């Protein structure tokens, strides 16, 4: 554990050098992988009657300026005591996907973006139910369902924002609609919560995520990523006069595709 912490601190230190060396007149745009933690996983226990604990880390890396391949993974422990049964559901999950920025970066230092994205998720988990009580005319039974190892796959549509609050530190949120693709069958009960998906009780599960992120500024460039063309009619008069990528822009940079350098001086 100590080694991991030392490694992370060393990496943070090394990756901070370009920022420390950054002078006031510097016009580099710094990019790099971003790693963060979903804070909403810590808020959930306070918002629900059942004990629902867990953590989730999220990471992305810029690709061609406006695309962000994303990896997320986490764990969840769910312990629910209802009036007629006790339910436990624990598991690990991961998601792979991509986010696409849908707004224009306004300057070299502007890293705030709004995104839409997709995810593919996979979860391995187990569920166990005890003290199931049922009563009718003939009497009462109390029974248990033993631990059952299960898995689930799903897709997600994501909409969200990330903004740079402090240099290299980001705050962001996302709303997610989740679409289960396959869940291991259980003759006695369909899991009403799945790690990575959340509650599956009725309709399309929705979820939200609020996170803080640190960006390792290991790439730099002098160009602002071009907005992704979404098609449609061109509007006259929008010549992007302030866009350094625009050939008509008065700056010294050459336009065209993004030109990243390694983060050294």
């Amino acid at each position, binding site marked *: 554990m100590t080694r991991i912490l030392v490694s992370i601190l060393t990496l943070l230190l090394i990756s901070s050098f370009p920022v420390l060396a950054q002078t006031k007149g510097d016009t580099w745009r710094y990019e790099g992988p971003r790693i963060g933690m979903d804070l909403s996983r810590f*808020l959930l226990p306070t918002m629900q009657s059942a004990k629902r604990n867990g953590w989730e880390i999220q990471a992305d890396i810029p690709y061609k300026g406006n695309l962000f391949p994303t990896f997320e993974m986490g764990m969840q422990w769910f312990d629910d005591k*209802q*009036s007629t*049964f006790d339910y436990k559901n624990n598991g690990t999950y991961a998601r792979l996907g991509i986010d696409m920025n849908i707004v224009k970066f306004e300057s070299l230092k502007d890293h705030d973006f709004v995104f839409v994205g997709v995810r593919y998720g996979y979860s391995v988990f187990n569920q166990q139910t005890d003290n199931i009580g*049922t009563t*009718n005319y003939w009497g009462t*039974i109390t029974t248990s369902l033993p631990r059952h190892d299960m898995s689930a796959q799903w897709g997600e549509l994501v909409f969200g924002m990330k903004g740079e609050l402090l240099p290299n530190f980001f705050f962001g949120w996302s709303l997610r609609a989740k679409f289960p693709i396959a869940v291991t069958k259980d003759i*006695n009960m369909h899991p*009403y919560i799945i790690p990575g998906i959340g509650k599956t009780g009725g309709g399309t599960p929705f979820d939200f995520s*609020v996170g803080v992120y640190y960006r390792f500024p290991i790439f730099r460039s002098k160009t602002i990523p071009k907005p992704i063309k979404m098609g449609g009619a061109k509007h006259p008069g929008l010549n992007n006069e302030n866009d350094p990528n625009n050939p008509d822009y008065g700056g010294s940079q050459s336009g065209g595709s993004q030109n990243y350098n390694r983060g050294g001086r």
Partner: protein
Amino acid sequence: MRYYQIVISLLVILLGSCNDGNRCYDSVDTLMVTSISINGFKNVNTVIIKGINRNDVGDTLVNDASSSLTKRYPLPLSLTADSTGFVLNVNGISDTLYLRHKMIIKLISEFCGFAPNYVLSGSRFTAGIDSVKITDSKVNPQSIAKTTNDQNISIYFNASAH
């Protein structure tokens, strides 16, 4: 944009804190819908149904004195045994019916809990009953919603005995 983000974030958190009130809106009782009739279009005048060996006060499942060609009743099945026995007193004559079944416990929903689900596999009965027809062997919490001409089992009594 940053302030905008924070405001929307708070709204998202509030939205996420909404829930459905932890209520159960589904049927939780598993009852076998049973129709009773007498061959030869003879009226069923009185019906009293009890569980077998259940003779205490309050153990009567059905006590119906209205007159009709066919009657329908929801009846509970045993939770612990693989068969359930009923004593059916129709027009003053008692008969016994045993139904064989398999039961599994199944989750209805998070807030409704579990309910037994049965599959009927056969029957055994005394001479006053002509036949028992299992029309839907699956007995679950949704069975109670069956419409007039739909039932789990139909019991036909001998006209000569009644």
